[in-house]
């Protein structure tokens, strides 16, 4: 892949990730969100946030298994879209469900465990989005950056439980997300457990690689 191809691939991901948001906004503008538009928009954006979190977590295993190192380019875009959809999810809840009332939003959050989990997921993603630029990676240094960005596991786990907890009886969709997440995190756990044990004295100082 040359730089030109990579630029195109980046554009491809950027545009496709924006398609659901565009269609949702288009449908909202044309009053085509069904009988309960606010609920529909909250559900859709929440679902998108989870899907993009899963896709973000898929990049590293896929890269390692397939050897397509170049796909790493998509991780930041996918992660930022997960954050974008999570923000939209919260803002629609805050604006349309709670009528921009801070007190009503906060009192709901304190009382409802699933809202605490959802807020946790969103808040945890804030520092990740802020430190997603190349300059920030340099400033933090690869090792610290990588450690910080492991918070994405917390966001994904909290997000999936948040979804599971508010379903009335049909838990099939949240369980599907939980299964995918278990595979993605299980892969990392296995890689971690099977890592070659290097003795500190002889281990070469490796250049920081950006993985999470």
């Amino acid at each position, binding site marked *: 892949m040359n730089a030109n191809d990579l630029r195109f691939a980046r554009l491809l991901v950027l545009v496709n990730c924006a*398609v*659901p948001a565009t269609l949702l906004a288009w449908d909202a503008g044309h009053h085509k969100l069904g009988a309960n538009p606010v609920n529909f928009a909250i559900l859709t954006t929440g679902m998108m946030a989870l899907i993009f979190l899963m896709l973000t977590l898929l990049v590293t295993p896929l890269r390692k298994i397939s050897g397509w190192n170049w796909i790493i380019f998509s991780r930041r875009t996918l992660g930022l879209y997960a954050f974008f959809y999570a923000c939209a999810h919260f803002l629609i809840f805050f604006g349309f469900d709670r009528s921009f009332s801070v007190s009503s939003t906060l009192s709901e959050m304190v009382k409802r465990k699933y809202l605490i989990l959802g807020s946790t997921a969103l808040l945890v993603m804030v520092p990740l989005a802020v430190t997603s630029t190349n300059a920030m990676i340099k400033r933090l240094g690869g090792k610290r950056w990588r450690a910080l960005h492991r918070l994405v596991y917390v966001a994904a786990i909290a997000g999936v439980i948040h979804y599971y907890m508010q379903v009335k009886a049909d838990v*099939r969709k949240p369980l599907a997300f939980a299964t995918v997440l278990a595979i993605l995190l299980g892969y990392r756990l296995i890689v971690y457990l099977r890592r070659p044990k290097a003795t500190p004295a002889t281990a070469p100082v490796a250049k920081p690689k950006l993985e999470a």
Partner: protein
Amino acid sequence: MKDSNKISDKEITDPVIYFNRRNFIRAGILAASAVATGAVYRQLNHPAAGKINTARIEGLTKSATTNAATGFQVAEAQTSLQDITHYNNFYEFSTDKERVASSAANFETKGWQVSVEGLVRKPKVFDLDDLLKISAPEERVYRMRCVEGWSMVIPWAGFSLSKLLSAVEPLDEAKYVAFETLLDPKRMPGQRSGVLNWPYVEGLRMDEAMHPLTLLASGIYGRALPPQDGAPIRLVVPWKYGFKGIKSIVKIKLVATQPRTTWNEAAANEYGFYANVNPRVDHPRWSQATEQRIGESGRRPTLMFNGYAEQVAQLYAGMDLRANF
């Protein structure tokens, strides 16, 4: 001598055209991928819509319902037929409210029978037509509050359940009424999943069942009930959460003890037997203080007994509504 293998300069594609073609192809790939992503989104995530063409109900009257004190006619904007028929909780067809209508579209109700039995002097298996002849259909405009926190205003057609119960002459030992939905996974594909314990069952205390507001409904907006709303006959108890309004009823049994109910069995700490609409008693996972009225923007406060306190509060006098939720 001419070298036949040499490509003359004239034959080499002009770099400008070459890169234009490349960009052209890329634009094509970009557009095609966006369309494909959009198609997947639409496939997985589309709100429902469709036409309702069920039979008109003959002889529908409003005459018995003009007195405001009865609660038979709520003076609030009615929810559109489109929304009432395309936003349904009916797990026998789908757990997705937007997909119930399409899943239920071909539900066949020909030859429907309702068995009314148990502690009664005259048990009977009614053919639907005979059952509907027990009393002339009335239009009742009720609020409908779902336990999930949304609500509608629905013009039902039907008659008080008390008319049917009186016809079969309940015995004194009858203290409760148990209802049952059709069990037929071939016609109700949702029953193939184990999401709930099928068939769906519900129940009322005798005094609740005999209350004039408690409706045996066979229509909405002057038309026969479409499948997604509980065809051909369902229960409507306007002061209780919507899940008490059991749909597609095949059995009504009068019993001595409190019958089991489906949602209570699924999650006893979340759904009680009474399930009276109560803004002061929250669902363990969400508040019941407000509701999203379908068709309105913003939430409105939920009313005690869904606004029917004047009519039904005396049924629960002295009862702890927090313990008996």
